[in-house]
């Protein structure tokens, strides 16, 4: 029984991790749901006893009610965080009209480069004898925007 649980948890967790590495926010959320369910299944597997449903009066040994209540709580929590993540993806989509991580990274890159240029200009204005522009910029931007785009 433990073997079956372990395999199921491993498959769920593995599939979830695989989806987390995809370049799409919706897949990412599905991955998180799978990983959350792997955790829920893991809690069920940690039961100390197995047997009948834990309802009195019972004939024979009862299963462990503790893990069931814990799983139930964890399911409710992961449900609410999933809803929150979906709402956030909707906001991201509203702001950028895309849910692809590559496009978002591109937007991030161009935004931070614009900021960097501003920053460097301020820096030079205030401290005119200091370093030239070219020394400041590469410190924080590693990849150029053209590389970030597929």
């Amino acid at each position: 029984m433990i073997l079956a649980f372990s395999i199921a948890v491993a498959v769920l967790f593995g599939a979830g991790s695989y989806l987390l590495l995809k370049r799409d926010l919706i897949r990412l959320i599905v991955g998180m749901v799978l990983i959350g369910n792997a955790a829920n299944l893991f809690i069920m597997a940690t039961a100390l006893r197995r047997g009948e449903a834990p309802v009195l009066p019972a004939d024979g040994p009862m299963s462990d009610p503790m893990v069931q209540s814990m799983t139930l709580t964890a399911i409710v929590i992961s449900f609410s965080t999933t809803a929150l993540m979906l709402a956030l993806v909707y906001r991201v989509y509203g702001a950028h009209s895309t849910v692809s991580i590559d496009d978002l990274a591109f937007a991030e890159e161009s935004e931070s480069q614009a900021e960097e240029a501003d920053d460097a200009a301020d820096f030079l204005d205030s401290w005119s004898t200091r370093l030239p522009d070219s020394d400041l910029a590469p410190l924080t931007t590693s990849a150029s925007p053209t590389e970030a785009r597929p």
Partner: protein
Amino acid sequence: MILIALPILLLWAGAVILAMLDGTRKPVVLFAIAILTSAIVATGFLAHEVLTEGTQEMLLGGWPQGISIAMRVDALGIVFALVSLLVLLAALVYEALGHIGARIFPALVMFMALGLTGIFFTGDAFNFYVFFEISMISAYVMANYGETPRQFRAAFIFIVVNLLGSVFFLIGIAAIYHTTGWLDMVLIREQMPLVAENPAILTATIIFVAFSIKLGLFPFHFWLPAVYTGTRPAVAAIFSGALANIGTYGLLRFGADIFPRELEQGAPVLMILASASIIYGGVQAVSRHTPNEVLAYSSIGQVGYVLIALAIGGEAGYAAAVLYAVINAANKTLLFLSVNLRGKAIGIAYAVGAFSVAGIPPVGGFLGKLGLFQLVTEKGDWWFVILIFVGGALSFVYMFELFRRRFWVPGDGEAVFVPASVLVGVLAVLIIAIGLWPEPLLQLSEHAARVFPERVP
């Protein structure tokens, strides 16, 4: 003990009521501040009880111990609860003095206060997880406060990474339940030495990873700068002053209390991670330009000091960790709130915070550094003496580089509004007061460190 339930019930009721009201209106904000203040007063009374009479306990529903969910408040919990609530109050007042940008903000602060108080007051491992999620979910929403596209992106990373951390924590709790058979932390502590070595180490590692993600410790830090950079000062102050306490408290509670044997075995790893954190955070902070980014990397560095104290351990080590965590929370709140304002008075307040981070007397941060210093010199680890010096020098450089950029040059930035500078001034005076009259805080942290059982070699 009804006094344990009082702060939680107050915050709970307040949060639910506030969630339905428009938080941008002045009376509603005043109501939120009143609720938070009364919760702090109630916690203060509870602190008096705990410090004079010892650990307070309440078994919910009147069931016997082991079946009922226990609320248990000891000196460690009460210290963290008071600090977190005060930081939340400062941030809420700061936002209220400016203008509150979202109707949900006061309710979120209240929910986070509820979650944090619950974490610090609970004596049940699964209940810890539930309160932990309450405060994390309000943090997830709070990360969007300001509603710029950049924050949405940062918040998404924040949610995914921290949700993974929560899942790890949940798995750790389930593993503890399976190996010890209990969820009550006192009973777990008694049962833990009987657990076989391998499962115990595995569980301890999973829980360590979970809390390190919350803390933003070096290899798990990647979400932290992204979130801090785009966010508003009050939210950044809440994250680094209140929310990060979960990580410190969790490491102390689960590390020193439940897994003392595993903590001792893992000490070398902790020390390596702590050193990496201090150096990485310091160097990155020096190279950054936007104020929030500098302070975010500074947070990563400061966590390292707490971890060193934890890894050295013993009563002195835990006391130093608590002291450092408390002072760090105060520093970061002051710095995040002051760095986006302009003006001479604000500049002085910022300088107090900067001296405190660098650890220069007479401000509070000196105490934290001094405690650590005594600890490492007594232990005779010269590498750590050098590390603390280098870390301090780096923090001095980035703090005053930022000071120069923000306060020495004319430029844009939020215009000074007088009430906010009064608040920032009060925080600065508080930090100086801690430095000048350190006995109460020192005693408090020593008291907190005594809650852990003696290590058996």
